[in-house]
């Protein structure tokens, strides 16, 4: 029990530090890929500290509640990951976190925010089936939805779920809102939606959204690492390699339209994941 509390505290404090540093490296590597010098590695921390010091302009009274729900559900999902809880439940809690953000963006009257929120719904529609297939594939292999079961399973999951791993890397681009799927919001301003889903959040609220992005990144990296959990450090290296791959994809792709994204994700992501599950049945 006391161990669990210590692990939880370390995760809650450590995850934003790791996530922030990863985003800092992201901006630096992206700048280098574009032949620029790039900001310091600590830049995301400067951004968030600055945002915490800004005047708070709330558009309505409920907006902050949605932002906090977005953050707390993400933290809950992280705790489920580090405490080796139920994988299926983790996916649902992550979805709740996203829905809180969508409701926050929908609660204001800005058309940019609303279109951003609708596009975010389309993104969820695209990637949620793959997450469910992943949880199901894990159950089929290890006989349990528990993350504990993955860690005690003798062989790495990657050998039994290679196509689901591919599908997960594919939807990672959507989850991280990188090109070509960065249309609900983007880290670069001056797109057709201004800043999309985050347009109406400012000051502390925007800082909390950034913080949630860092937690989300750590959760996603953790889920990738689960595919190679014996030994876990190989899985972490694979997760970092996947992140680097995302950066390269981000810099060589233009944005696609949402119908193309939904179709492509269901066919490529959902299709490969389904083939993997069918193969598991045939093999057995």
């Amino acid at each position, binding site marked *: 029990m006391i161990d669990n509390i210590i692990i939880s505290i370390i995760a809650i404090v450590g995850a934003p530090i790791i996530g922030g540093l990863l985003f800092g490296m992201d901006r630096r590597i992206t700048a280098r890929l574009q032949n*620029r010098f*790039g900001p*310091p590695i600590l830049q995301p921390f*400067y951004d968030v500290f*600055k945002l915490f*010091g800004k005047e708070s302009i709330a558009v309505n009274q409920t907006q902050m509640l949605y932002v906090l729900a977005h953050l707390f559900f993400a933290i809950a999902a992280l705790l489920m990951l580090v405490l080796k809880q139920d994988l299926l439940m983790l996916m649902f809690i992550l979805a709740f976190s996203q829905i809180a953000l969508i409701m926050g963006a929908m609660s204001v009257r800005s058309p940019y925010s609303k279109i951003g929120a609708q596009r975010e719904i389309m993104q969820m529609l695209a990637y949620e089936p793959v997450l469910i297939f992943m949880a199901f594939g894990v159950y089929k292999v290890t006989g349990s939805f528990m993350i504990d079961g993955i860690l005690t399973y003798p062989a790495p999951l990657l050998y039994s779920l290679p196509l689901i791993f591919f599908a997960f890397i594919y939807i990672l681009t959507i989850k991280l809102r990188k090109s070509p799927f960065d249309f609900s919001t983007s880290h670069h*301003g001056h797109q057709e939606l201004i800043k999309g889903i985050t347009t109406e959040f400012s000051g502390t609220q925007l800082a909390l959204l950034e913080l949630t992005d860092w937690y989300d990144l750590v959760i996603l990296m953790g889920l990738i690492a689960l595919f190679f959990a014996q030994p876990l450090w190989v899985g972490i290296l694979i997760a970092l390699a996947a992140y680097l791959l995302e950066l390269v994809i981000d810099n060589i792709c233009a944005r696609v339209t949402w119908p193309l994204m939904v179709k492509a994700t269901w066919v490529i992501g959902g299709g490969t994941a389904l083939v993997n599950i069918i193969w598991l049945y045939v093999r057995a």
Partner: protein
Amino acid sequence: MGMINTARTKSPWIIHVNCSACNGCDIEVVAALTPMFDVERFGIVNVGNPKHADVMVVTGSVNPKTARVLKNIYDQMPEPKLVLAVGACAGTGGIFAECYNVLGGPDKVIPVDAWVPGCPPRPEAIIDGAVAALGLFESKAKAMKEKIAAKAAETAKV
């Protein structure tokens, strides 16, 4: 508070407003964002959204039509905020100063913190002006705190 003040000078997000400029200054402002000058190495990002911005970069002279738009965008920016007027027109109205429809620089409508002269100024001069303006964030933050405290006292009285 020291950490937040440091962060302010290291992460100024800008919004660029064109008040009837001839596009010369705008091209120089955008040039500062290119790989050649790369202002992102100072944490400067062009956000294009007043609610996220810390520094407003104004180019061009102000006329009665743009005055309203400029004031509106300025009011949407959360405190502490800075205004940087870029170019001769944003200083005094430039060669258009005597026109019947020109009010003058943006300082006729909103408080301006720093001016970058030139027609158009070089990107180096714009970056220099932006860095000089960042020193004002601390006093701005102090003024914001006093404003909030005064507001709270007023509501407490009511």
